[in-house]
């Protein structure tokens, strides 16, 4: 059973092919990062234009890599939300064109669930009950996955239950903003990660908002403001800041909040494993701290390799394969939903 997955929700044009739900056959990404770098963020119209230009060559490339043709596919899966509306529409329209041309089933995939489900390509069937932290440029949520993920149930929309989320900025957004403020390149996550390795994470005690409040929601915009205020204060005093220390301390504050809230949720809800998902799960400090903390707490930890954490087509194909197995198909009227929630 082969599923082709198309991902165009943000700034990566990506196509993946998955066989029998667990085997990755192709994963091709045409990144637009360089197009958006001069603006310090993703520009929706630039993204939509670039997706249209890149998509057909990316599909071709994936088919060559997998050594198969479109007519061999059992279904065409595509991210239908959340994301940038104009960008999503390019992928969904192309997916419909492919499905029409070969009379194949069409599957609408939730980008956020796909970030979690991609782990099945490296670790096999996800073993609930587990907590997943989905952390990216647009989202920071903690969800529970409680039911057994057999093929028949994988497409069940009720499987994911939202436990908590950021009430303001997403973690990736905070990384980008602070990176821009201290003059680092875009995207900010990898730049902060790199700079932070030379700094002391305990150098500056930035705030961890809501850390001791009950529940699993978090707030990151106050942290961002605190970093900016700290830098302005030094500037006013004529002191040169140690940017590596700033990056390391800022990153540590974000990571602390993620670790504490996710592990608290896992403990309180009786969840046995933690899955890290989304682009910010590529952050080395986040990965290391979760490894320590889960070990200490006796929790299992599932962390996809970095290329499967950032946006990719394989995750859409994997999630699509689960939905196909469950018989959850879309029709040709499939719309896009820029605000599609992770858990319904």
């Amino acid at each position, binding site marked *: 059973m082969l599923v082709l997955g198309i991902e165009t929700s943000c700034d990566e044009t990506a196509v993946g092919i998955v066989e029998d739900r667990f085997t990755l056959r192709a994963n091709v990404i045409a990144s637009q990062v360089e197009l958006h770098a*001069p*603006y*310090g*963020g993703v*520009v929706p*119209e*630039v993204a*939509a*234009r670039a997706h*249209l*230009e890149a*998509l*057909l*060559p990316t*599909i*071709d490339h994936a088919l060559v890599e997998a050594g198969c043709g*479109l007519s061999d596919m059992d279904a065409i899966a595509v991210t239908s939300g959340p994301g940038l*509306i*104009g960008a999503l*529409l*390019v*992928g*969904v*329209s*192309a*997916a*419909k*064109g*492919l*499905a*029409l*041309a*070969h*009379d194949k089933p069409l599957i609408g995939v939730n980008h956020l669930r796909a970030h979690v489900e991609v782990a099945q390509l490296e670790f096999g069937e996800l073993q609930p009950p587990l907590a997943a932290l989905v952390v990216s440029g647009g989202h920071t949520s903690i969800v529970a996955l409680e039911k057994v993920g057999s093929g028949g149930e994988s497409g069940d929309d009720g499987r994911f239950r939202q436990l908590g989320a950021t009430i303001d900025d997403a973690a990736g957004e905070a990384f980008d*903003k602070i990176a*821009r*403020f*201290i*003059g680092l390149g875009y995207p900010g996550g990898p730049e902060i990660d790199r700079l932070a390795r030379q700094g002391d994470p305990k150098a500056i005690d930035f705030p961890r908002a809501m850390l001791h409040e009950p529940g699993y929601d978090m707030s990151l915009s106050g942290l961002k403001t605190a970093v*900016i205020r700290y*830098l*302005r204060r030094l*500037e006013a005093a004529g002191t040169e800041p140690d940017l590596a220390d700033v990056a390391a301390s800022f990153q540590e504050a974000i990571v602390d909040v993620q670790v504490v809230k996710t592990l608290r949720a896992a403990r309180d809800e009786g969840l046995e494993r933690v899955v890290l998902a989304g682009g910010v799960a590529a952050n080395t400090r986040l990965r290391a701290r979760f490894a320590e903390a889960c070990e200490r707490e006796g929790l299992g930890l599932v962390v996809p390799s970095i290329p499967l954490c950032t946006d990719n087509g394989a995750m859409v194909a994997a999630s699509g394969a689960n939905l196909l197995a469950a018989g959850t198909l879309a*029709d*040709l*009227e*499939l*719309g*896009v939903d820029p605000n599609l929630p992770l858990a319904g």
Partner: protein
Amino acid sequence: MLILGIETSTGQSSVALVGTDGVVASASLGVARRHGEFVAPAVQFCLRQAGVGADRVTGVTVGLGPGLYTGLRVGIATAQAFAAARDLPVVGMSGLDVLAFQVRHVRRLIAAVIDARRGELFWALYRAVPGGVQRQTDLRVGTAEQLAAELEATGEECLVIGDGLSRATHELDRVGIETFAAVPDAAHLAELARPRFEREETQRPADLLPIYLRHADAKIGWEARGRMQGGAAT
């Protein structure tokens, strides 16, 4: 020969299947913002009405604009994916050419116009020639005043056909130019493209790109935003 035409450059999108003897099936929708949901089911509807499968289509033609960017991309992405999947030749056409073609029997100078939003219009001028129309100018983007001035300067009798003319009525009335409201539609598009398929003047699906006529407008917005958020720490 069975040509699939898709036109989504204005608020009214349409799909048509055109054979050697003319239109076999067509569908259109006048609700803007719903192109995304409309196009693929409309293709399926046309194939079913014609009683054929996707494998019987021999070519795909699509409107490249200028027009509403999001709609254009829906039409083009659907058309090129369909064509690529079936290994079919494609022909991309400007909606302005299609509009002028719709009034090809008019002996006057023809101005085809499409709403560009933000108070502007897209247009080009045409003249009837045996078998169709010939474009006389580049594709332009500008205000109704600029269009009226350009037409007035020709000193010729003109017919203005197109979409978004309500914006230009006052200016065009002032210089005494007749207007005719219309949108480019997929059946005319496919008819106009048919000779190109016959002569094998076709393109590859990946070559199809929208005619934007405007930059992505990103720089201004992001520079302003960068300043708002503090920009560099200096």
